[in-house]
């Protein structure tokens, strides 16, 4: 039987060093709501676990005039109480808050949700729509990476050995902006997204869309940034035609599998439905953020 070591460093540098220098498999631990389940089912068998929750940079939320920075290990319960982030990116906060139950919310983090590598992770399409960028620390120093580039396949990340996500940086949205995230699950909670869609958009004074981003989850091996979705909206007043084009772009971007959670046809169809519905909520928010 291998022994499982546990470390709880207080700096990013120590965490990176512990992870990079480990002999066998080493795992970062944020809330543990994915990792502990995987340990108990023998899905992963690491020799070292490095808790990130004592590192201030991963637990802080800061906002200045230009950007909002959310520590990668901040829990859903904490972020849900942050009025500044909720006002700026309500869709991101709602997406994180959809995860699990009250108990899970006390622990589940954006960093863990992303770095678990699931194509169905709820907060990821919302982060993609928000244009969030990861600040990454590793043995070779720091770098930034857009959220949509982090997951490269189911359970596969673009992070190298010893690299961790320190925080997510999102722009402070301009006036008349709104975002939203919707997921489809057969139940009302405690389920994994069959399809997830995040939309962020900005209107000009005339109500014409000047900026838009569409993120999709659970419809391909990785969460997607759908460029055609943005194009369907930009330059329109987000009318029915534009929304239909958005839905079509969302469906067209899907490359799903048939699995226990949904069929290909179903996912393709519902992706369009959710993209349209999320855009309508984002639009409503943008209009009231005048």
């Amino acid at each position, binding site marked *: *039987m291998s022994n499982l070591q546990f470390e709880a460093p207080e700096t990013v540098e120590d965490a990176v060093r512990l992870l990079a220098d480990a002999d066998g498999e080493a795992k970062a631990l944020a809330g543990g709501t994915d990792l502990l389940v995987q340990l108990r*089912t023998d899905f992963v068998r690491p020799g070292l676990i490095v808790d990130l929750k004592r590192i201030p940079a991963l637990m802080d939320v800061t906002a200045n005039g230009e950007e909002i920075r959310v520590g990668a290990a901040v829990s859903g319960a904490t972020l849900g109480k942050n009025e500044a982030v909720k006002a700026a990116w309500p869709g991101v906060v709602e997406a994180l808050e959809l995860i699990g139950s009250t108990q899970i919310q006390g622990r589940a983090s954006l960093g863990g949700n992303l770095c678990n590598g699931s194509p169905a992770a709820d907060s990821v399409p919302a982060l993609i729509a928000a244009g969030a960028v990861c600040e990454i620390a590793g043995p070779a120093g720091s770098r930034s990476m857009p959220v949509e580039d982090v997951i490269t396949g189911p359970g596969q990340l673009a992070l190298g050995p010893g690299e961790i996500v320190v925080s997510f940086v999102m722009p402070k949205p301009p006036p008349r902006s709104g975002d939203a995230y919707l997921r*489809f699950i*057969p*139940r*009302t*909670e*405690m*389920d*994994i997204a*069959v399809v997830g869609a995040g939309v962020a958009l900005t209107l000009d004074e005339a109500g014409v869309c000047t900026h838009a981003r569409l993120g999709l989850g659970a419809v391909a091996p990785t969460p997607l940034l759908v460029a055609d979705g943005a194009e369907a909206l930009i330059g329109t007043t987000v009318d029915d035609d534009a929304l239909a084009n958005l839905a079509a772009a969302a469906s067209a971007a899907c490359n799903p599998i048939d699995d*226990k*959670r*949904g*069929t290909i*046809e*179903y996912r393709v*169809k*519902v992706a369009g*439905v959710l993209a349209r519905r999320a855009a309508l909520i984002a639009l409503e928010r943008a209009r009231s953020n005048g």
Partner: protein
Amino acid sequence: MATAKQEIGNGNGSLKYVGTRPWRPDGVDKVTGRAKFGADISLPGMLVGRMLRSPHAHARIVSIDTSAARALPGVKAIVTRDELPDIPNQWVPAGEVAVNYRDMSQNVMAREKALYDGHAVAAVAATSTAIAKQAIDLIEVDYEVLPHVIDVREAMEPDAPVLHDDMFTEGVEPTPETPSNVFKKVEFAHGDLDAGFAQADVIVERTFTTKPVHQGYIEPHAVVASAGEDGQCEVWCCTQGQFTVRAYCANLLGIEIGKINVTPSEIGGGFGGKTVVYLEPIALRLSQLAGRPVKMVMSREEVFRASGPTSGGAMTIKMGATKEGKITAAKAWIAYQAGAFPGSPIGPGCMCVFAPYDIENAEVEGYDVVVNRPKVAAYRAPGAPISEFASEGVVDELAKKLGIDPAEFRLMNAAKEGTRALYGPKFGPVGCIETLEAARQSEHYSTPLGPNQGRGIATGFWFNIGGESCATINVNEDGTATVIEGNPDIGGSRASIQLQAAEALGIPPERVRPLVADTDSIGYTFLTGGSRVTFATGMAAIDAAGKVVEQLRERAAKIWDIPVEAVEWEDGYAKPSGSNAGDFEPMSMAEIAAQAGKTGGPIAATATINAQGAGPGFGTHVCDVEVDRETGRVTVLRYTAVQDAGKAVHPSYVEGQMQGGAAQGIGWALNEEYIYDKDGRLENPGFLDYRMPVASDLPMIDAVIVEVPNPNHPYGVRGVGETPIVPPMAAVAAAIENATGVRMTDLPMSPPRLLEAMDNGGANGGA
């Protein structure tokens, strides 16, 4: 409610405690965490047992090499097929049911073949979980993988892979010469079917399918077994029947019944799924070999892969009715999959399929079919929800075609006192009409619906059973009483036994402590199932209380020195029967008990019963749904369950049963299913992807109790635990049809299936 209230009870015509809602005796311990469930039992020197399970749906077990595992330090015993007796293929009576101990033995431990993904192949007892796990990994099994079959209709095809080469379909003439997966055929008929259909103005015929669904009890199976050096064995486990566990362990291991004592723990749900054994005989065998107690606890994954859900079914139902609304004929073809060994609830499924209706001409044929899935176990009203989902769907469609309100149409054909059921007997007083009337008259049934909303109604029937029970009442020195019985409390039965004993003794329920005893401490009692406990064990408790009251009167007579006939028992007091009996102050049970030593010794009595005449249960459910036409998602907006309880002994727990049955039925209707991959491996062995409803999926379920007393019980009780899972699937399907025009005939009516059916603009399934 327009139901007759029968004058019943404790002599003065009214019931004082039965029908009230005191706190349940087991409630506080359960909400504080003090209650001991199966996995909470620990003994000194206890070993950890773990099971190696087949990864294949169907495979010949060529060899099992345990040598490396045995050599691992800390491994104390290993059990494979070689350590269990080989039992002849024979059906024998066991309590109320027939069992085949060969099949049972091969289900708890595979012999020649592994017959489903998760089938137990070897078990290890070791000094720690880590060592046990490692030992499991060291056991080498050589499998010859065989073709498998999962679907019931495919299993009936002539070229299907055959699970058992000694299975020649019973119930067909002549007996086939080649083995097949069809264990038996059953048939029921009365009247003249052709003549019946000839009278019909409208005929509907449809094919339905349902998926196997799991009971979803919260507590996984758990056992601690300890075999002593003197051959005396102790077993602690979560079960619905300690006597059943005792008999099954004895028969599977060749131990005398009297050498095994089984103590039931608290039970975190059973719903029928804990009426069988999985771990118990294996843990006991491991303990015999190791000479130490052995604990085994299933993981949730093991529960899904290896314990019995109920059957999936395929049904074709044909019914005809006149334009006036009389059902003239009904025909059903029903096949249930039994899992890897025979014994699906096909019999009850066939008997129940048309039971809510008075139909002159009817014919049912049913098939019990084995497939490469875990052997099915009982699940609330076993068999009835499957076939009645189908027949109620056809009834709903007939009503629609005839332009008659579906409640009205059912009322026009409803079974009542004197109706002869297809399976033989004539009904006594039953509440089918009363539940339909109550549903039809409810505010719910006439509340207007919004867009994309629909309403469905369905009725369900279940027999309920009686059977063997024993109860002992001990009067304590302070005049309180302990009632000892043998039925694990899965649905609030301790409260209902307590109330009935209190009623019969005439003392408040808080002065009666109910206790569920081990097999050595109470007489044989059939398991908790068939909605029998409140009815049958309740009567045993009432009888025991009657005997205690006799003794109390005798003791008072002795103290007063008057004849016992001159002593009456009223409200917990002995009283002289009249002025010429003598002038004595009434004497309480406490006063009599305090003097018991001087008047003849302890006051106690035991009663045994084989209760007959369980009143059948009818229920009618009304369901409102809203359908998202773009995603196929169904939201249950409102739900009312109406049921005849005979007499609701503790109305809160009757309502709880109705709500629980409805909740499970809604899950069965909408999302629950086992998903097997092409190799026959279960892909969703957990609650994440086996989608039972969560609390936020359901509205408050309104429960309406109707009371049509059962004349065969002193207080009018009928069983209530099973009927409420029968109507929901048909009620939900009818509501979806009402909302969308699409009649769903295949369960579950999950979003992808419903969306596809709506997009195709018609029915799904094989209609």
